[in-house]
């Protein structure tokens, strides 16, 4: 399949991007948006780490520090990880299921173009009277209701982000259910498609709940309602329940697509079919189901009845079972495989190891009596950064390295890719591992100043943060260089890459599959015979 000029009758210049309804263009827009926000959120993280390099107040005032922690979280969650996954979904899902494009292309355009406006509004609050939101990304009242002029802008931008991701999710579900090529049954779909299908349902289920919760904040502040106002018979703890009813499925929204990415990459470089495909699908679905009944483990200390604490503790620990199934399946996929260690594989292996460390600290936090000690300390900060940075972010980076040659038609520089990998992996641990220790020793999160005995570990963390931040410039340079040129990539790109996207040319044509692909051929790779031939070859 070759790309001809006649295929691409679309406006040129800026209007191409504003008016595009093409899944590849919109995927590119999402990924670049996410990349830009990654650096903006990263600068905020470095401001936080600079202030925490030494005890005492050095560089920024506490109010600004607090708005940095709040904004850093909102940007990294809603502006980086979620758009990056939506971008990957846009690029890959139609190609993986043998479709031409997304099911609802005009809504696709709309769901992207809401985002720049939402985040412009969010970032503009930093320049308003009273500063940006500074009560934490969880927006707990009554503290969040003391935000200055920024509050309605923050709430409306959260509404916009919610609308954008709900529309993106509806599009993904409609695409997967309606656009599959003949022969592409649900249980033949690549895991990235499966994990995104489940993620999309999670998004549609919980983003509206968040929208409702923040709307209640808005009416409490400006229209005299008393949802969370104790003076009017409301209850601030109710907000925490509503927030975490959204918030816990949200953390799986942030990680499930990365499970899909890693499940695509590991088999390619282990040269073996994915171990336990159907158990992977069921494990993903179980995690999604369990995510709805564990939310109160974020609020063990608000004063729940003992029965409630026990229920949420055991339900939370139960999640370790399907997650463990996944980790064991990845390890079994690599077991006795003919492994090579290209950059995407390195990031995927680091993902498995470091995400598992984050999972273990999560299990510690799930133990109710222990959580009273860990609650709101740096141990929690260490935990969720381990699952989000070397978890979600590493998976996104791995996905970019893995599919970039397909997208651009050029190979990236393996040397710089590996340099980026080693620097990132070393510095991410230098940054976040010491946080476990200061957290267990009692350093609270969200404070600009701390007791003297925490200085050493905080200095190490700050050095790591700057190292990690600047290492990402290598990634930026490498992506730009690969788009501009480099060795020509073959259609298959990787020796043992399998899936319908690899049957297209590199770069793929503007409209992915105009004739239905042969699903059986690609699927048969998942059989044992192929494994035997690879084993004899190596």
């Amino acid at each position: 399949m070759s790309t001809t000029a006649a295929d691409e009758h679309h406006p040129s210049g800026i209007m191409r991007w504003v008016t595009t309804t093409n899944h590849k263009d919109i995927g590119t827009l999402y990924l670049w948006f996410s990349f830009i926000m990654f650096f903006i959120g990263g600068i905020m993280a470095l401001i936080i780490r600079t202030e925490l390099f030494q005890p005492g107040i050095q560089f920024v005032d506490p109010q600004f520090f607090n708005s940095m922690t709040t904004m850093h979280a909102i940007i990294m969650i809603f502006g980086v990880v979620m758009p990056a996954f939506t971008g990957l979904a846009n690029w890959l899902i139609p190609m993986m299921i043998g479709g031409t494009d997304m099911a609802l292309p005009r809504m696709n355009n709309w769901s992207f173009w809401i985002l720049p406006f939402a985040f412009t509004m969010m970032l503009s609050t930093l320049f308003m009277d009273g500063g940006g939101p500074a009560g934490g990304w969880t927006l707990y009242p009554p503290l969040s209701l003391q935000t200055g002029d920024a509050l309605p802008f923050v709430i409306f931008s959260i509404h916009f982000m919610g609308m954008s991701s709900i529309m993106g999710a509806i599009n993904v579900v409609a695409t997967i259910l309606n656009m599959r090529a003949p022969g592409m049954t649900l249980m033949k779909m690549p895991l990235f498609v499966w994990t995104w299908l489940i993620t999309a349902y999670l998004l549609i289920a919980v983003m509206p709940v968040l929208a409702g919760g923040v709307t209640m904040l808005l009416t409490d502040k400006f229209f005299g309602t008393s949802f969370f106002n104790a003076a009017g018979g409301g209850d601030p703890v109710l907000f925490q329940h509503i927030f975490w009813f959204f918030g816990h499925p949200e953390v799986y929204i942030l990680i499930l697509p990365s499970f899909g990415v890693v499940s695509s990459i590991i088999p390619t470089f282990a040269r073996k079919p994915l171990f336990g495909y159907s158990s992977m699908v069921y494990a993903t679905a179980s995690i999604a189901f369990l995510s709805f009944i564990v939310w109160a483990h974020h609020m063990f200390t608000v004063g729940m009845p003992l029965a409630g604490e026990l229920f949420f503790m055991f339900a939370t620990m139960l999640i370790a079972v399907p997650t463990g199934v996944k980790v064991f399946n990845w390890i079994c996929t690599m077991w006795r495989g003919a492994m090579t260690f290209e950059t995407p594989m390195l990031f995927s292996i680091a993902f498995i190891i470091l995400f598992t460390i984050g999972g273990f600290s999560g299990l510690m936090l799930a133990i109710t009596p222990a959580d009273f000690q860990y609650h709101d300390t740096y141990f929690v900060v260490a935990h969720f950064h381990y699952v989000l940075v070397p978890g979600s972010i590493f998976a996104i980076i791995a996905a970019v390295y893995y599919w970039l040659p397909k997208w651009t038609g050029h190979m990236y520089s393996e040397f710089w890719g590996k340099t980026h990998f080693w620097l990132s992996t070393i510095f991410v641990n230098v940054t976040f591992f010491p946080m476990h220790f200061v957290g267990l020793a009692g350093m609270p999160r969200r404070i600009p100043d701390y007791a003297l005995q925490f200085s050493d570990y905080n200095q190490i963390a700050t050095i790591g943060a700057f190292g990690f931040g600047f290492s990402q410039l290598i990634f930026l340079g490498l992506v730009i260089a690969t788009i501009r040129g480099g060795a020509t990539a073959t259609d298959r790109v990787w020796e043992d890459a399998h899936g319908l996207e690899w049957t297209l040319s590199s770069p793929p044509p503007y409209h992915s599959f105009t004739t239905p692909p042969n699903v059986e051929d690609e699927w048969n790779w998942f059989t044992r015979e192929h494994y035997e031939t690879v084993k004899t070859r190596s």
Partner: protein
Amino acid sequence: MKSSSNISALKLCFFAVAMFGFGYALVPLYDVLCDITGLNGKSDNVTQQQQANFEVDESRTITVEFITTLNQGMSWDFEPETTKMQVHPGKSYQASFFVKNKTNRSIVGQAIPSVAPFSAANHFIKTECFCFNNQLLEAGQSLEMPVVFVINPALPKHVKTVTLSYTYFDVSNTVNKSINNIDNT
């Protein structure tokens, strides 16, 4: 294929709207759950008939403590006359609280009660209470406010001490803007 996509999209939109509604449905659900479990110390106000059914249990003595809090630096004096009482379950008692507006302007306050521990909340019955009423105090005015309460003899055996806490909130702004919906007693 196009129309089936649109049908999927429509169904999913409906799902999203329903979940927005569910977010709001969590509010009454939460209240119901709190009423059942006594979570957050939300205690019942009970009718006279129910109270008459209680048998006084002289063999048990419960310590009742009173705590007062002023929200967000409200400039009132607010104290219980006695901080501790020894009571028998089933018998009616009266405690009183003293409030004084120390400022030179009139302020509307509203008291919100809470009972700890949670397992006692449903068994601590206030037959007369100043809670949830908007209380106007002119500059310098002071007031004595009674609470009549009875402890249900069904109070779990392990509870030896019950704490009744009142928090006074300044609601002058809300009342003056006359957009209050807080008179829900």
